[in-house]
């Protein structure tokens, strides 16, 4: 039987994988973006599992807002990536 703990455990594992990726990214912005996507997935599972468990739509609403902020995050990361490339000819791996 699948309980909420299964979902929480899955979210935790995914978040830890993303966190590990962010820590070991060596400043590369593309790798940081990948790690943030993975971490965001962990957060999504957490929100949705709790929303389902409590029967409250707020988890879904908040995740929609997080998606919008995530799109802004991607735009800013792309700009930083471009600036790093213009200045140092890398995407931040050696520059940072």
């Amino acid at each position, binding site marked *: *039987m*699948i*309980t*909420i703990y*299964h979902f929480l455990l*899955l979210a935790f*594992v*995914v978040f830890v*994988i*993303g966190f*590990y*990726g962010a820590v070991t990214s060596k400043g*590369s912005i*593309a*790798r940081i*973006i*990948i*790690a943030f*996507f*993975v971490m965001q*997935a962990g957060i*999504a*599972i957490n929100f*949705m*599992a709790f*929303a*389902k*468990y*409590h*029967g409250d*739509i*707020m988890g*879904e*609403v908040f*995740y*929609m*807002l997080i*998606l*919008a*902020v*995530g*799109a*802004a*995050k*991607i*735009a*800013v*990361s*792309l*700009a*930083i*990536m*471009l*600036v790093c*490339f*213009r*200045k140092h*000819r*890398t*995407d931040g791996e050696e520059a940072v």
Partner: protein
Amino acid sequence: MILSDTIFYFFAVLLIFFAILAVSSKNKISGLLFLVPFICTLSGILIALGFEFVALSLGLIDLSSICVVTVFAIMIEENNSYDSKNIKNLFAFFMFSLFLVFLINVVAAFFGVSNVKEIAVNNDIFSFKELGRHLFYSRYFLFQISGVILFCGASGAIMLVYGIEGKEQEKIKKSKIHKDEDLELVKLAPEKEGAKI
């Protein structure tokens, strides 16, 4: 019940597998491409939970942003280590994983895990209509604030890139030498005949 359990475990294993592949792959572009089946698997889990609208928006927003980041990463990549065979293999894997995940998503949509005892609730509150009602009536300011943050992020990104470009153009302007200001024309004496250079 057994089928829904199996679907959840399968999705969970697949999600962790693609997450590890995305994070640990040596090539950035491969890592970004591994995110595509990862996001599709996540959408599958959300569909199985009964959040179809969030799963669809996640697919639309995240997959499009991943595509943009991948294009930028390919443009920036200096060492062009991709030959045609590599690209074909990568593309074949990409298409296969997409097909697999979408197939499983369809299965999950039919036999979702939402009928499980502890998670089972009234599914009517998660309908599109209810979500829209909450967003536009109950959480209107939050919705507006997220829009403002998105706008600020996009305009900040443009300003960041444009600001650097403007500074570089100023440097180029400064480095230009004007004939009247910095150059002095001097008449040189004619070289002697037969002189070797």
